[in-house]
């Protein structure tokens, strides 16, 4: 597949997908439950916008090159939700479930990415939220045990 073909394709997909994703400020992107403030915290896109944003480029195990990711830090989300626990059980739109130690978020700058290469992540790709580890900054992260924690289509975190 040559480059030109790919670009045409991406443009086509973008034209089809983007109108289908309502960028509604009040729609809930991420729901936190368990050991958080009042047992349930819902974060809307507006909540995300109000937080500190970070970005970095990293290689991933499912893409070529090093995409640029933009979003908020996982530890900031947990702080904001008043989370108190050692693990979070992350659940994705596609029913993928995995436990992640909270220590990861303090040891590494783990991102809850909303943008890849400047394009908003959509549920039709890996959105709305993709947990991204700074894989290239720490050799230890280039490992299947960490790759499993890169949850895409993240919709819920249960803190325990």
């Amino acid at each position: 597949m040559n480059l030109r073909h790919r670009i045409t394709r991406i443009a086509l997909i973008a034209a089809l997908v983007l109108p289908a994703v309502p960028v509604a400020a009040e729609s809930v992107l991420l729901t936190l439950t368990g050991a958080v403030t009042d047992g349930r915290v819902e974060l809307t896109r507006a909540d995300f916008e109000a937080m500190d944003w970070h970005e970095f480029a990293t290689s991933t195990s499912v893409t070529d090159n090093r995409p640029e990711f933009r979003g908020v830090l996982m530890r900031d989300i947990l702080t904001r939700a008043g989370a108190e626990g050692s693990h979070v059980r992350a659940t994705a739109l596609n029913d993928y479930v995995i436990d992640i130690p909270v220590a990861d978020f303090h040891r590494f700058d783990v991102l809850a990415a909303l943008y890849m290469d400047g394009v908003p992540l959509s549920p039709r790709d890996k959105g709305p939220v993709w947990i991204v580890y700074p894989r290239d900054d720490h050799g230890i992260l280039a490992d299947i045990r960490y790759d499993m924690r890169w949850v895409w289509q993240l919709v819920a975190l249960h803190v325990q």
Partner: protein
Amino acid sequence: MTGPREWIRYLGLGGLVLICLGLSGLAAWQLVQLERQMRIDATENMIWVFGQTQIEALNLALALSDEAAPQQVQTRFDVLLSRLTLLEGGPQRRFLEDAGISETLAGWRSGLLALDPAQGADPVALRAYVTALVAALRGKASLVMSHEWQIQAARLDRLGHLHRLALASILGAAVAGMGLATILIDRERRLMKGRLDRLRAEKLAGDLERERETSENHRRFADLIAHQLRTPLAVIDSAMHRLTRRGTDPVPPELISEKAAVSREAVARLVKLTDTALMMSRLERDAVLPHLSAHDLRDLVTSVIDDLVVTAQDRDPSRIRQQAQAAPMVALCDPALTGEILSNLLCNALLYSPPDSRVDVGVSQTRTHIVCRVKDRGRGMSPEEIARAFDRFRRGSGHETLPGSGLGLTLARHLARMQGGEVSLTPRAGGGLTAALYLPREASA
């Protein structure tokens, strides 16, 4: 030392060291490679990825046939779309290309997008499309599985190959190391053998030298003894001759007793000579061991003088003056050996001094030793003579005709040293010689 053989050995040694290090380095490099290839990549999880795509296609088909809520259909649609998007990502796409199934899966994603329910697409057409997709995926699942295991098996083959290479390198290094160790041990053994040979040769040379010296001493000793034997034997012979002279008158009793006395003295000298010779011989064999105990040296001196009065009458032992000394002078010594030394020093003093001169004997003490000094009024000795006085068979200059073995001082010093003491000679103030015997004090022993 560095002949061609030696060079060849050095080259062999260097070669073995290089082989050993090289193979070790190779093994280390192979192990590092092995460690790197043992990582598992998420990309190698295509069975799961493909399976999930199938499940999502089935989920959407189910939602459509159940006529579920539009929101739910939309979610399943989005998720299936995301799965197909994932299959088009770089690593996944390459895997499917390698497995030869990318062609059959191409175009499904754009076809699905064209039937987006959010765009009001026909649900019936969508259902037919999804059903076809499920069938297409099902047909390829086993290919994905077999390709993935092919990859894994090939990777294990590579790991096994690396592992065997590393093992072979380590074994090679071990063999080279053993060769090295063998050469080094052999070299060490040769060195040790050379060192032993040299020591043995040195010992042999020493033994030979000592043997030569002993033999020379024996020759001189034999000469001396023969010479010393002549005089008393001649005295005895002359006495016998006089007594048995034929003719004239019967031999008067006075003459008999006079000649008997002369003969007995000659015999006593012979006995003394043989005693000294025996003692030297025993000393040479290290057969004399001192039995050390505490003795007052004044008493030993007194008893030696008493003996001399009997045995050395011809030299007039009454010339000896023993200085009075009130305090006890206790030395740690062997009384028999010490008596021998004192007797020798006193005899020398009597022998080498004029017949009418006095010989003084005094016992005193230093911090560590008891000292007995024998002072004569003879002609004394020069420093050079003193330096040689303790050599074997050395006779006082100008006294070669006096009786004596020439062993006396050698013997005296040897016996003194055996007891931790010493014998020394110094010129006496006012002429003559002072001979001193040092023996350890009892307390300092």
